């Protein structure tokens, strides 16, 4: 229904409303210059392209609308609106995706790993030098980070059956473990209840 301007029939605009002045070969202009009620779409004719369709002569300025206050459909609108904050996870029977909620007992430990705002464990794998160096990082550590480091080292030594190098960044509140131990450390964190 929009007014369409195409360069190939640009000059036809000047002929609208001046039918008498148009020479006999007006069909060559590529536009049908009738001035009927063109805003009515259902008496439709398929024009081969926009340029060949006629200009809209009569556009209705105002259409009639029902304004419905507190409509029953508002529930459908509300479900489309974004979350205000990330929702807390409600307790469920089981979590098939393998995600495990944090447990209350973990808060009594001398160290703590808090969850991210997405309720995930903050354990990541940093890959550098085109995959030649893999470093597992545990972030968001609170409490006694050195004790946590000792525990991780002992646990990894048993799990990987070799000595595993770690590095503690106290101010950054994270520990880096040399090698890809994301799954092992995630299991450990779940056991601890973080």
């Amino acid at each position: 229904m929009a007014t369409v301007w195409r360069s190939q029939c640009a000059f036809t605009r000047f002929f609208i409303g001046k039918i008498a002045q148009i020479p006999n070969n007006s069909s060559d202009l590529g536009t049908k210059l009738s001035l009927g009620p063109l805003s009515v779409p259902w008496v439709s004719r398929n024009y081969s392209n926009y340029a060949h369709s006629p200009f809209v002569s009569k556009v209705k300025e105002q259409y009639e609308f029902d304004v419905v206050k507190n409509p029953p459909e508002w529930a459908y609108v509300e479900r489309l609106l974004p979350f205000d904050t990330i929702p807390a996870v409600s307790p469920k029977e089981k979590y098939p995706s393998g995600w495990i909620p944090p447990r209350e007992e973990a808060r009594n430990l001398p160290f703590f790993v808090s969850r991210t705002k997405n309720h995930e464990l903050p354990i990541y794998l940093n890959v550098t030098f085109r995959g030649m160096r893999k470093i597992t990082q545990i972030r968001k550590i609170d409490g006694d980070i050195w004790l946590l480091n000792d525990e991780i080292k002992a646990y990894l030594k048993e799990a990987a059956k070799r000595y595993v190098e770690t590095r503690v960044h106290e101010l950054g509140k994270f520990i880096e473990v040399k090698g890809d131990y994301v799954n092992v450390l995630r299991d450990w964190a779940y056991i601890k209840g973080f």
Partner: protein
Amino acid sequence: MTSFLINAFKRLHLSIVPNRIISSGYATAVTTSADAISVTQKEWKFPPVYTKPREVWIESLATVEEIKLGLFELHPLVYAAVPRIDIIHRNVVWQKKYRWVSWAQTKTRAEVRGGGRKPWPQKGLGRARHGSIRSPLWRGGGIAHGPRSGKTHFFMLPFHLRIHGLTSTLSAKLAQDDLHIVKDLEIPSDEPEYLIDLIENRNWGPSVLIVDDTDIAPRNITVATETLPHVNIMPVYGLNVYSMLKHDTLLLTLSAAEKIEERILHHLHSITNEQQAEFKLNQI
């Protein structure tokens, strides 16, 4: 072995239903003891998990001497974060730079007056060849690669660094006893001397930044601070790292402290994909 343990815990968990306290908004329960000191126990939407909440005294500006009206809890994620000096520094640098437009300007050889004529012929004089007396090689000539005016130094610090800058500064201020919480901003007189006395008496250092929840502060304190260039009032949405460091003491009203806490906790616990996206100049 490990998988066995995990399965055991998964099975264990079925019987344990986490006891979550989910309260809507910031309901505060006030318990008043005999000697009229109120101790506020807060229920947060995002309660502190491991770190204990910070307790601060609620003070009053009604007298020159310090009176303690009660105790107030502050969320550790906001008021007891690790004070990262480097992040504070980056915030300060950002605040200085984003509004800095450098107007330094030098003239190029095209802009210096004259110099259109070849000073002497190319050959035959035994002199060095030159095409213009305003070449950068000449004394009084144009400047090559000099500063050009209207250069902006605008950039945007990543969203979470801005948040972390605020929490770091608030935590550092609180840890250094430079953050004080008052019930409201009512003072008995509109004399600036009263405020000077009060600041002197409480050892708040000369400069004080007062932050309130509302845009319109009470009349007395507005009049009293008007002639004091080192005591400033700011609405809560204007709080920033630079101003907090510029002033010796930060004075928050109760409602301002809660509002700051609520906004920062909201950003720390919401989906921030939009804020973290690359800053575009036409985003309004």
